[in-house]
């Protein structure tokens, strides 16, 4: 099960935080900082997985952004690694060459994308075509 999804830039600014567990606000802040400290020190030769408390982080870096998914230790690493990429491809398509600023100015839309693809801590929809079709329908609405 996914415990949370984070998108952070190299400086540690959070561009998306989606929580699937109930945490206190101060605990969330602590988790965000810890994850940032954990993934930013790793280089390209390292694995995309790293142990984190009693969970693990599966992450991938895209330009200056780190996409991190926190999952249970026995979850399938590669499946979540590619779930990240699938998500990024959808964002890229939806925002026409997504960049960090798109996520800032359209933060409320990013949540919609997440809800289409991940729900209740599980993968909901994996077809990019289906997700994008649904998102296009939604954006055409008032």
């Amino acid at each position, binding site marked *: 099960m996914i415990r949370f999804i984070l998108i952070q830039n190299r400086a540690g600014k959070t561009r998306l935080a989606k929580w699937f567990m109930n945490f206190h606000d101060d605990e969330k802040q602590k988790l965000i900082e810890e994850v940032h400290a954990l993934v930013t020190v790793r280089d390209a030769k*390292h694995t995309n997985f790293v142990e984190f408390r009693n969970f693990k982080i599966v992450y991938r870096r895209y330009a200056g952004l780190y996409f991190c998914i926190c999952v249970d230790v026995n979850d399938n690493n590669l499946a979540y690694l590619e779930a990240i990429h699938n998500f990024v491809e959808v964002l890229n398509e939806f925002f026409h060459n997504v960049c960090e*600023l798109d996520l800032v100015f359209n*933060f409320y839309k990013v949540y919609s994308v997440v809800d289409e693809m991940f729900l209740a801590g599980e993968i909901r929809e*994996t077809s990019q075509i289906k997700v994008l079709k649904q998102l296009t329908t939604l954006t055409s609405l008032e």
Partner: protein
Amino acid sequence: MPTMRGDAMRGLAVFISDIRNCKSREAELRRINKELTNIRQRFRADKTLDGYQKKKYVCKLLFIFLLGHDIDFGYMEAVNLLSSNKYTEKQIGYLFISVIMNSSTEMKQLIIQNIRNDLQSRNPIFVNLALQCVANIGDREMAVAFTNDIPRLLISGDTLDAVKQSAALCLLRLHRTSPDSLQLNTEWTARIIHLLNDQHLGVATAAVSLIDALVKRSPDEYKGCINLAVSRLSRIVTSSYTDFQDYTYYFVPAPWLCVKLLRLLQNYPPPDDPSIRSRLNECLDTILNKAQEPLKSKKVQHSNARNAVLFEAINLIIHMDCESSLLVRACNQLGQFLQNRETNLRYLALESMCLLATSEFSHEAVKKHQETVINALKSERDVSVRQRAVDLLYAMCDRSNAQDIVQEMLTYLETADYTIREEMVLKIAILSEKYAVDYKWYLDIMLKLIRIAGDFVSEEVWYRVIQVVVNRNDVQSYAAKIAFEALQAPACHENMVKVAGYILGEYGNLIALDPRSTPLIQFDLLHSKYHLCSPTTRCLILSTYMKFVNLFPEIKHHIQDILRHDSNYRSSDVEIQQRATEYLKLSEVCSPTVLATVLEIMPPYPEKQSPLLVRLKQKKPLMEAEGAVEPTSSATTTPVTVYIDDVPKLADTAQQQNGLLVSLDTPESNGHYEDSTFSSMTKPATSTVQSNKKFLLKNSDIIFENELIQIGIKGETTKSSMQIELYYGNKSNFNMTNFSSNISCTGELESELRMNMEPIKATIDSRAQIKQSGTIDCLKDFRDLPKMSITFYYNSMPQKIDFSFPVYLNKYIEKAAMDSNNFFLRWRNLEKPSQEFQKIFPAKFPMIYEDCHQKLEGFGWSSLTGIDVNSENFCGAGIIHTTTQQIGCLYRLEPNKQAKMYRLTIRASRDGVAKRLVELLEDQF
């Protein structure tokens, strides 16, 4: 600024730009405060704010909140947006409550009403929004409120696919947060299972996650999913990637669905039905074959997706653990990955192989890769990969390769990362003891270990060396010899001085005839280290000197000189001073025979399991679940005592007995727990039952207490669900951090009890108490007790406490009243031998009628009068509620005051239950 779409909120974009342009934190704060004032005024003044304005302001508030500021208004406006009939307004409303208001209760009813309206809407987009909201913030109240609406959406024929997907995961959320409030009608089971067959792969993808959770709750009820999962999997695996246009990801058909299906199947043993089983084996075979095909794309996404499925298939193969050909093929495949260019793959291969090493079918196959794994240890750049290599070496180690593996690990240790050294030291120590044929070899290894990694040798490790030496008299003289040699090294680690000091004090006489190690030489050598050591070690060495006085009377006056020396006799360290004074006196006043008695060599330690395993698990609590350590590795261990006071104490024990849990009775019963930081999980539950267990008959108790922590419980049962509250009190003067508490049901219990505990705060301040609520549902009658495991850091030392969690079957009994006729009618109906259990036992307490009556009532069932002809006897009845059935039980307790005995007879409608209840009750009277 990026291009904005038609629906964009211009004011929001301007505001975000402003914030981004702020040069300082203060400027940002000023801008935010200005905006907050503005919004507040708008909300207050302008009653006629239109939907667009409202949406824009609520969205701004959300943005401000996400920047890390508190938002304490605008909730009502957000909730108002929910009833808008415009998608964009509704969406912002839902988003706001999902992100900000998830724990607020004030407007709960209003929100629930709005959600209900949307769930019943004809517009699937609105239905979906409402479902997504519940999936994000659903709680007990929502589970109750929508217990019919959501399942209906899931199984109804005319629901859109997208809505079904959300409904499935929405149910999953409610099931996780509040399993007992969500009652799924058993008539729906078949239809839920059939979602696996849904034409739309997205529906199947979402539904598997729900079914996986339901299977964990009632495996038998959902057994039908095995067949469907296997056939769905088979259809995907054997198809070509072109068959699933939308769901093909980089030439791999539906990888995520495959992974989920393979995980679902890991909830069950291998299928019984031979045709399903052979179909599943074909699937697994096909997946393994595909891994050998050339890649269809150079993109890493392609190989990742393919391997995600492959690794999950291997997990299933390991889980089934019965097809040796598949296991060996899996092992060979992983062996190939060990050489792969991708670090990820090498890492995952090492991880999976750890599991394979524990299967008897593949253990030998794994061993073939020993050399590669050792190379990984030497050449991998990522420490986490090297860590996995260490784990695997540890897992594949057996008697045949122990010497090599231990040697390689030792060599690597010299250059290993600091972060993993301590763990490696433990592993080397465990392996070399476990597979030692010759204990001289063991000692050589251990001393070498201390020499090259002294700083990382924890106390448990060197205590254990001493335990082994003390208990094996065949190695004692060898130990003395090599300890003496080790001390001769110019730079000698303090841990080495401790070990050598201890061993020479006990067995120095065994090498004293050798002219190279006469008593005086031994003494001088040891004393040359004395001044370099910490006070604790000096204390230990002083004790060694004292032992020398007994072993070697000829050097007594040398030692007395040392003891008399100001640096000891008048040491600023109290302990040193005391030892010097007392030892000096002892050496002066005692006759040789008295000395010989006082300073006798240490008796053997009781043979218990090595504390090292416990230590290893403390370090890595996750390994328990992974099964990478051998299964026998939990047991009682007494802390090793060398010289009683050389063992550092856990903490200064603040003996506060007044109990922090004011709401509970004062502690009188610590009976449940097996004390100390060391776990004792192998003790059968029955032995804990012997203790005084108040929670059996009352609704609250202290379930654990030591000098650091007190844990109390309160419980209240309605039918098959017990609401519990746990109170964790920190009795110490330090904060406890990284606090975690876990109650686990293993083995049969997994399907008998369902725990649902809310998350717990990670820190307990000094002298503070935190509360954790939760529910424990009884799915089936049960016998064992769950295990409770608590870990935390105290004064930066990791602590772990394990004990049995006292939830007993009788907690789910509901009283039943009846008259005499009825009672005996039912009694006679339960006449099968398996339904009755009887026990005669002596009275433990004074045989007072009132007390017995009270205890029986406290146990949960009724204590009826006027049933039995003999008014001294007790009779009564109760119903045990589980989620699936009700078990009637009747009892009769007959005291015999002359003989001071009782006869207890219990009859229950379900086999085995009567016996269980007798066991619980028999020592209570």
